[in-house]
């Protein structure tokens, strides 16, 4: 308003003066004065005009300035919004020129790619470290060529957070005013989450498919833990599996998978190919020996908790049948100091293994090396996976039980066949033996009566002696065979096995000396008495020690060890003699099988029969050049 006033005021004033002048034309005498005033008015008017046009010019300029200022503000505003958006999206941006050189890059990208210096001017391959640079697979190259398919995915590791990310690069064309393609904008997006999700689902599916067929239990347990620790799926650093033993009422560590140290963790990460391996590849690549002796695995296997102990997080998890996330083990009352110390980590998750409505174990997983927080989301998928795993374990266990039963059955069958064979051989041999024994008695008996007479020819006496001796030998063989055929009842009494062994060794002392055998006895103290037939057991010891001595014609060492192992006694008789060849080893318990020139081939079968009648077993190990180890086991109860 004030502007208008100032513009109109002189004009009005002048027209007022003009009016006054016109009116006073006749009245005013001094024409000159009037003319002067007239001139002044004209001057003011022209001046006014001039000023007016100047003012108009000026105001026009200020409008332009105002506009550019607003535009600038707008640009700033938009840039701010754009920056915010970029930040929210968390995307990396990079502008490339036609030579794939970096024109500009944002901070997110610099952070992700771990760039310490400004990348401007660098070739893109120097900062992205991708192996498709300059090839047709490069999205930027494709865009410059005007092709479709402008995205590429790859794994990167940001060293700052040690987080492995799955990123997607999307190339977009940027044209100039004339519509000519000048630059390519590379948009880099973190798709780790969705990628992981996809793989988890894929994993679940693959796992389901694979476990539909029955797997070996050990292999399955390994597979489950490998899935949990696989970087591209659940990505936990370590996973430990505990299984419930219902018989003993405990939950104990079975297997653990994961690196034992930070160095190992880094190494494994670098070894892992960026491509997501299919589960089948993992199974084929599973290397048991690698993981068996890791400190982590050993530690896990040593962890046993009674199910009744409700102060331990694994037993709580097994009882409550819900996943437990421990955020701070030091403050969490469910975690004992011992468990925390063993794990060496404050944040971990326990997930119960539930199969057919029954808890069969617990899986514990943590991120001890990366320290990455465990999200609700990952636990949910983990729980889903673990449920499936539990079913698979249950299946494998059932299968294993079945397998054990089949093994038992086969063994029983074999034993039956052997004992039937023994029985058949026994009855036949005893028939033959008796048929032979009677005439032998007569021959030998009469031959002996002859020795009472005196002969002029000394040859007759010698010949008679030969007949007598040979008959004796035959009778001895018959005794062995008839003893074998006989099914005697066991006369079991509580016996100290060490005593029997001691007696046997004393009995053979002179024999050992003669054959230059050094005897080493190692009897564990506190060997309990067991119920056996002492005479028969002594027979077994004699047979086996005799064999051992015979395998050392040039002398050697004989170790006799008695120890208690779990619910049985183990008696080891170890020689340093000629070993038993593999093909012979298969037959040593077959009746009448012998490699000895004067053997009857019943010593070992009889020994085995006696030990089996006592509920025990004989195990033979023979190594070429190292001798033979016979291990007898007898049950304590």
């Amino acid at each position, binding site marked *: 308003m004030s502007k208008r006033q100032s513009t109109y005021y002189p004009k009005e004033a002048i027209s007022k003066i003009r009016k006054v002048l016109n009116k006073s034309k006749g009245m005013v005498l001094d024409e000159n004065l009037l003319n002067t005033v007239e001139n002044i008015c004209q001057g003011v008017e022209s001046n006014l005009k001039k000023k007016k046009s100047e003012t108009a010019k000026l105001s026009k300029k200020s409008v332009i300035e105002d506009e550019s200022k607003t535009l600038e503000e707008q640009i700033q505003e938009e840039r701010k919004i754009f920056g915010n958006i970029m930040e929210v999206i968390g995307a990396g941006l990079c502008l490339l020129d036609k030579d794939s050189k970096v024109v500009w890059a944002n901070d997110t990208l610099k952070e992700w790619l771990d760039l310490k210096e400004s990348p401007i001017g660098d070739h893109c391959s120097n900062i992205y470290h991708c192996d498709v640079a300059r090839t047709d697979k490069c999205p930027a190259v494709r865009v410059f060529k005007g092709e479709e398919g402008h995205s590429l995915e790859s794994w990167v590791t940001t060293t700052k957070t040690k987080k492995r990310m799955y990123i997607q690069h999307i190339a977009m064309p940027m044209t100039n005013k004339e519509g000519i393609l000048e630059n390519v904008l590379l948009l880099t997006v973190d798709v780790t989450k969705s990628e992981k999700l996809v793989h988890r689902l894929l994993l679940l599916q693959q796992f389901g498919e694979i476990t539909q067929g029955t797997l070996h239990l050990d292999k399955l347990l390994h597979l489950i833990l490998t899935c949990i620790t696989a970087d591209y799926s659940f990505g936990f650093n370590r996973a430990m599996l505990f299984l419930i033993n219902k018989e003993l009422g405990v939950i104990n560590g079975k297997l653990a998978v994961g690196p034992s140290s930070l160095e190992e963790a880094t190494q494994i990460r670098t070894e892992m190919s960026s491509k997501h391996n299919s589960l089948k590849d993992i199974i084929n690549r599973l290397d048991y020996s690698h993981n068996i002796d890791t400190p982590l695995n050993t530690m896990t296997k040593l962890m046993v908790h009674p199910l009744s102990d409700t102060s331990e997080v694994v037993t709580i998890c097994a009882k409550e049948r819900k996943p437990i996330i421990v955020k701070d083990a030091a403050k969490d009352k469910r975690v004992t100091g011992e468990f925390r110390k063993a794990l060496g980590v404050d944040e971990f998750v326990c997930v119960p293994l539930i199969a057919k409505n029954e808890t069969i174990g617990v899986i514990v997983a943590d991120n001890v090396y990366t320290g990455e927080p465990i999200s609700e989301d990952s636990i949910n998928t983990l729980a889903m996976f673990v449920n499936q795993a539990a079913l698979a374990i249950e299946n494998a266990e059932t299968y294993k039980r079945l397998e054990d039963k089949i093994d038992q059955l086969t063994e029983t069958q074999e034993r039956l066949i052997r004992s039937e064979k023994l029985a058949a051989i026994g009855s036949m041999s*005893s028939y033959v033996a008796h048929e032979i024994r*009677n005439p032998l008695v*007569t021959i030998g*008996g009469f*031959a002996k*009566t002859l020795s009472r007479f005196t002969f002029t020819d000394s040859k007759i006496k010698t010949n008679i002696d030969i007949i007598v001796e040979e*008959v*004796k030998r035959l009778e001895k063989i018959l005794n062995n065979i008839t003893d074998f*055929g006989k099914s005697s009842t066991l006369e079991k009494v509580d016996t100290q096995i060490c005593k029997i062994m001691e007696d046997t060794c004393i009995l053979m002392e002179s024999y050992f000396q003669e054959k230059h055998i050094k005897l080493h006895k190692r009897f564990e103290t506190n060997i309990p008495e067991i119920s056996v037939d002492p005479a028969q057991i002594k027979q077994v010891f004699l047979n086996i020690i005799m064999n051992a001595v015979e395998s050392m014609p040039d002398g050697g060492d004989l170790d006799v060890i008695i120890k208690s192992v779990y619910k049985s006694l183990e008696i080891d008789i170890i020689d340093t003699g000629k070993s038993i060849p593999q093909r012979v080893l298969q037959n040593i318990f077959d009746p009448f099988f012998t490699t000895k020139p004067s053997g009857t081939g019943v010593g070992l079968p009889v020994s085995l029969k006696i030990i089996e009648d006592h509920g025990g077993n004989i195990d033979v190990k023979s190594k070429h050049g190292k001798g033979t180890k016979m291990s007898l086991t007898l049950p304590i109860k």
Partner: protein
Amino acid sequence: MTTILLVEDDKNQRLLYEQELRHEGYEVVAASNGKEALEEVQEKLPDIVIMDINMPKMDGIEAMGRILGKNKEIPVIINTAYSNYKDSFMSWAADAYIVKTSDLSELKEKIKEVLAKKSKDS
């Protein structure tokens, strides 16, 4: 003189035992099966019986049972080629159990032992 009743179906063996036992100074009466043995026991009243088991007509176990049924004072020694009768409770009734061998010294020893015991008991 001590009379031994020898029950043995094998002819040659019987001959052997007769010879050997006579050489030891015993009077030997021989029977080739259980039935004959029963008759001889009635007739000759032996001091001791040496009994084979596997025999035709009547086996040694049955014969022993019948002999002991009539006169349980007569000692019986079982002399057989089979060792498995040792476990048969029927043979427990015998005073001794010998598995036949060409070496007759065990048999001779047992006869002396059993006779000594008999004379001590009576």
